[in-house]
């Protein structure tokens, strides 16, 4: 019997604009490993919302915890790609994350809209999984060997540029997009809109960014990988490209035999 082991890295960095103004990072991410399952959640708090940094953090934490708890009960034998089940767990998890946000809003005498955040992520096991996504940013399921075509969950923006969709909106279910992928896709990349200009070129991953990233993170340990990722995303070159907060989560599945 084979089980999966995941190698992971993730950073959330305040944008140059936010650093200059002393505003905290409004991006968040959470990574959980439950058995041989990988759960990654990334959220971007809306710049205009009062408690957006809390919104993003709560959404990530509660959703990842919820999914990890659910997946921990799924035994290895049942690890087939039942994307319908995964999708329904994601939807339930998102709904519970909204309840947590609602509670936080009540406690702060605020509105749910004060916690506006986009959310996206991936749930992946040995046989594939599901990318989920509300709003901008991007999720990618890639094949480390380069054989399978990349599967991309692209940003969704409204007809007005700069306006996207949030988990905290009443019609969030209408904007929830789930994209299944198979066992051939063993690399996951999750990112907020501060990173998409670098990593996406049109509707495809930008090789010049993604390939060196995958090669490097695979070769080093998590601490080194995250330090290098932070250093790269903090370079002056990036300052000219985006002032926004930047979150990038990477995961690589490898088969570990017991």
């Amino acid at each position: 019997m084979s089980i999966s082991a995941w190698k992971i890295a993730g950073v959330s960095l305040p944008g140059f604009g936010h650093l200059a103004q002393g505003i905290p990072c409004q991006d968040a991410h959470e990574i959980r490993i439950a058995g041989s399952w990988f759960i990654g959640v990334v959220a971007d708090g809306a710049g205009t919302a009062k408690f957006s940094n809390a919104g993003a953090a709560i959404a990530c934490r509660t959703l990842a915890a919820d999914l990890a708890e659910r997946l921990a009960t799924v035994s290895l034998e049942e690890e087939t790609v039942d994307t319908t089940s995964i999708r329904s767990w994601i939807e339930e998890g998102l709904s519970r994350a909204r309840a947590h946000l609602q509670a936080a809003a009540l406690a702060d005498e605020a509105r749910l809209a004060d916690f506006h955040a986009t959310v996206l992520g991936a749930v992946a096991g040995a046989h594939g999984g599901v990318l989920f996504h509300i709003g901008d940013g991007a999720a990618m399921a890639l094949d480390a060997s380069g054989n399978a075509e990349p599967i991309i969950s692209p940003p969704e923006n409204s007809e007005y540029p700069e306006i996207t969709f949030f988990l905290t909106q009443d019609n969030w279910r209408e904007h929830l997009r789930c994209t299944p992928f198979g066992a051939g896709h063993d690399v996951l990349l999750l990112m907020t809109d501060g990173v998409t200009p670098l990593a996406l070129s049109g509707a495809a991953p930008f090789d010049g960014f993604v390939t060196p990233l995958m090669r490097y993170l695979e070769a080093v340990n998590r601490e080194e990988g995250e330090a290098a990722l932070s250093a790269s995303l903090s370079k002056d070159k990036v300052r000219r490209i985006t002032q926004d907060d930047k979150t990038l989560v990477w995961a690589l599945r490898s088969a570990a035999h017991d």
Partner: protein
Amino acid sequence: MSSTGIPDMALRDNTNQRLPCILVIDGSASMDGDPIKHLNAGLKMFEDALKNDDIASQRVQVLIIRCGGGDEVEIISDWKDAMDFEAPVVAAHGRTPLGAGATLALAKLAEQEARYRQHGIPSNRGWLFLLTDGEPTDTDWEQAAAACKAAAAANRVTVFGIGIGDANFKKLSAFSAMSPVRLDGLNFREFFLWLSRSASTASQSELGSPLQLERPNSWGTIQT
């Protein structure tokens, strides 16, 4: 823990529209001395001006071809985002195969535009500058000139002829429907500053909108 970042990772804005710009430079023997010295100094200023422009540095892409030797053309600086562009030093010796230079330029432009399409990157119409102080010395230059004119007529490229000193303006005008411009003396400095300003403006213009260029009064005279 300090880190210098992930090696070889390209950090560029893939959402930006691009303006591809090719310079075909006459590196023949007659350019030796002051002309090539001023030209190289101008190229360096071009590099600095582009890099100091936040928008142009990300949008303008530059490729430089040298014509010289025994009717040889060489790419002395392959496609670079302006922010990564480093002005090459052009050597002056040999002949002036301007036709071959223009042909190579059209091919490189087509190649780059295919790359943009493949990656869904929007782009402005490309620019092709031909700089010479003489006249084409390659035998089939007329064919190349006709191809340039045709590509320009089909809106695939804008071709500018820049003549220095005793350049043959009649032959230069065969490459473009636009009249060539005579550089005032060796005022490469003003020419390259004008070019970086123009590239900056054009790279911010809407796709498909007509080209609005500053008149070259600061550095040249239009040869009508």
